[in-house]
């Protein structure tokens, strides 16, 4: 049996009065590509962000890579993580954002090398070497010395993927990685992600690309109002034999 990398049970989260997550149960095994779909405001992005502790959890249990996210059990008590604990935990998880979030003052290769130098403490030369190799892998070797604003959206997103991969993550999180892209730039990013999935990377992907989820995903979860309404293989969930709510959503996005 393969290792479970993420196990959420009864995860709840509120922003003020607004209950965003109302008890999420979720599981991802090593090597799995797990896609999450659902209407906007259903809590899918918030849930993704709890996995690398960009959001805290109010109640329930969230175990990622054998750690209760945000706490360490010692002497029969849970001790909240320090800044350093969070940094160490996050350095093993890659994240790709909807709006790319490349460091605006650094060119592509420095964007990729930054965490290698600061977090992994690689010597500068080796970090840059690795960064160039990662850019080459996403097909952007010749753009290494461009600033983010000189790159197209699709190129920026591929740099962001390279930046996350350079850290050798055990798990990659994608938060609607193609939603901010012009339609003609979506495919180059999806191709990059597909290659990654075929290479055996564990991926959790919040997306509106139903076609991609069907083709590449191992599991598909449908989020609605802070819960997972349906979960199974993409074929099962997309068959439309589940709830009326899922069907209505699928009819709208297709």
């Amino acid at each position, binding site marked *: 049996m393969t290792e479970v990398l993420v196990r959420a049970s009864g995860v709840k989260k509120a922003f003020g009065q607004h209950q965003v997550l109302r008890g999420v149960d979720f599981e991802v095994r090593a090597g799995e590509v797990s896609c999450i779909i659902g209407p906007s405001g259903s809590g899918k992005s918030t849930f993704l962000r709890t996995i690398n502790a960009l959001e805290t959890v109010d109640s329930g249990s969230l175990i990622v890579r054998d750690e209760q996210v945000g706490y360490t059990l010692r002497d029969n008590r849970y001790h909240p993580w320090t800044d350093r604990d969070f940094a160490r935990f996050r350095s093993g998880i890659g994240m790709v954002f909807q709006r790319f979030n490349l460091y605006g*003052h650094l060119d592509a290769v420095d964007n990729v090398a930054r965490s290698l130098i600061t977090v992994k403490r690689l010597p500068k030369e080796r970090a840059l070497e690795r960064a160039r190799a990662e850019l080459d892998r996403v097909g952007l070797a010749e753009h290494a010395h461009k600033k983010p604003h000189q790159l197209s959206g699709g190129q920026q997103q591929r740099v962001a993927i390279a930046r996350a991969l350079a850290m050798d993550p055990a798990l990659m999180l994608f938060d609607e990685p193609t939603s901010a892209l012009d339609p003609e730039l979506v495919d180059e990013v999806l191709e990059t992600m597909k290659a990654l999935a075929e290479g055996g990377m564990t991926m959790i992907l919040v997306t509106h690309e139903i076609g991609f989820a069907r083709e590449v995903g191992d599991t598909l979860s449908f989020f609605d109002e802070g819960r997972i309404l349906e979960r199974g293989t993409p074929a099962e969930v997309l068959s439309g034999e589940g709830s009326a709510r899922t069907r209505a959503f699928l009819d709208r996005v297709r």
Partner: protein
Amino acid sequence: MASTHRRTTPFLTQSGDEIAIAPSVHWRRWVVGALALGVFAWAASIVIFNENIRWNRVWEYLFSQKILDGVVVTIWVSIAATILGLVLGVILAVMKLSKNPVLRVLAEGYIWFFRGTPVLVQLIFWFNLAFLLPFITLKIPFTQIGMRWDTNTLISGSVAALLGLGLNLAAYFAETVRAGIQAVDRGQTEAALAGGMTSAQTMRLIVLPQALRIIIPPTGNEFISMLKTTSLIVVVAGNDLMTNASQIYKQNNLIIELLIVASIWYMAMTAVATFLQSRLEKRFGQDRVRLVRGPSFSQTLIRMATGAIPTQRAASRTKETVR
């Protein structure tokens, strides 16, 4: 605004003949322009042809040794006070945004104190520091190794000025830096944290470098305003331009003449500083949204003097906003 667009080619008839465009006569502009010029010339003539102003003395003092010495002091005090203010301002801003409540309260207290009291009072206070601390001692704790100075010799007029103006600027500049830090997209912080950096690394390596690019235009403004604020040093006799000018006119009573001399120097320094600021903006403002501002009159003069005539294109290029 009236349309000033001009065709680049004349109209053509069907047979291909050119039909000329009649020149438009903007008579309203001429009348209003002439009126404005008249008022301005009248006001200027009151000063220029005033028999009580001895212009030959102005030229005489413009490059006199004492005035030049004052200019040098004004420049170095302005630069040093601005640097002190900027460095301290960044530290205060980071403290103010810190999660540590002690740092936050201290920063806010500092800002309140220095913004809540007139800079003139602060200058006099620093000048009279000897009253509180007759000696300033720096020594390694529990040892006899250290140094000791007489406060009155250490805190001269210009050092008091430097301290007072720098500490005061820091309080104002902290707010600018804080705004700059908060203007950096939240996504930058999230990306850095997701990449495994600590909050301190994120601030130092990702947020601050981008915030500083945003606040470079206001930084230039602070320096330009500092050049003139230094004239307050006159109250602590700091040997700056204004102090020296006032010492001269207190002896010979040529008050207006020496104020003109000082003004000419302040205007010259401001013009140079404005020019340097525009260079700084060009250098740093490329990948960020910036305040949109055309070249100032003095900038235009300097550019023309240095042979680089500003074109409409160059001016509009500085308006590019990219992100």
